């Protein structure tokens, strides 16, 4: 069954790496929608249903922490949200979790790590 995944990251390169990493992890049932920041991410969430949202933290216009809070506030049953970030500090992670994120994947990452974190959410 196809899973709709929203990737929110201001780097087009990183969005491609994430998509490739998910495929390399053996997860081949995902269809992707891309957004370049939290504002674009919210627009995508307003018009579509997603099974999983992956979001960077450090982005222009609306950062990932504010994006998570907005999504959690707008949707009655938000999909799982996983932060994909270089910022793995406890402070940032606990802030993301308190705003509605369900997990995080630290950059740089391997396909094995993607499988471990995202596999259960896309299985």
């Amino acid at each position: 069954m196809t899973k709709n995944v929203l990737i929110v990251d201001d780097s087009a390169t990183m969005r491609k790496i994430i998509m490739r990493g998910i495929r390399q992890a053996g997860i081949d049932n995902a269809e992707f929608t891309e957004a370049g920041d939290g504002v674009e991410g919210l627009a995508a969430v307003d018009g579509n249903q997603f099974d999983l949202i992956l979001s960077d933290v450090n982005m222009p216009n609306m950062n990932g922490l504010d994006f998570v809070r907005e999504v959690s506030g707008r949707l009655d049953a938000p999909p799982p949200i996983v932060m994909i970030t270089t910022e793995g500090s406890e402070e940032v992670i606990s802030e993301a979790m308190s705003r509605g994120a369900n997990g995080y994947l630290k950059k740089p990452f391997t396909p094995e790590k993607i499988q471990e974190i995202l596999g259960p959410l896309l299985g």
Partner: protein
Amino acid sequence: MAAQTLAPHLVETLRGSAREILETMVSLTPTSVDAREETAATFHDEVIGLLGFTGTRSGTFVVRTSLRFAKQMAANMLMAQPEELEDFEEVSDAFGELVNMLGGNFKNDWVAGGNQMDLSIPTVIREGQVTVSSACARGIRSGVRVVVGEDRFDVGLHFEA
């Protein structure tokens, strides 16, 4: 008074994260990743990535390389050939992400030591001149040089006084 250098364990963080990022995200194995003194405060390299930070200390990460190697790294990240990258924007985006990961990984260790650090969005400049303001007393400058075959990039960390 000359600018100081970074604590050894933080230099090791820079070295380790540079190696890990290159191997994991760029699919390149470094020939060497060595600590080096960052003596300059003005740079003229072909590609320069900048990431500012504030917090316990303010400053800038400065990552520099040749256009050729920046293109090679971007191509590897995108699983493409360098000649397929027609636009510098693609190179800039990939290099910016590299800078972002280097800064973010350093931040994790810096914050674990009880400090605060807020990172800017990375900026990438092609064939420009950059001067950072750490060349004064109490400033700290440190760096690592990553060599891959005949290519290299330099990661400099400049704390303002």
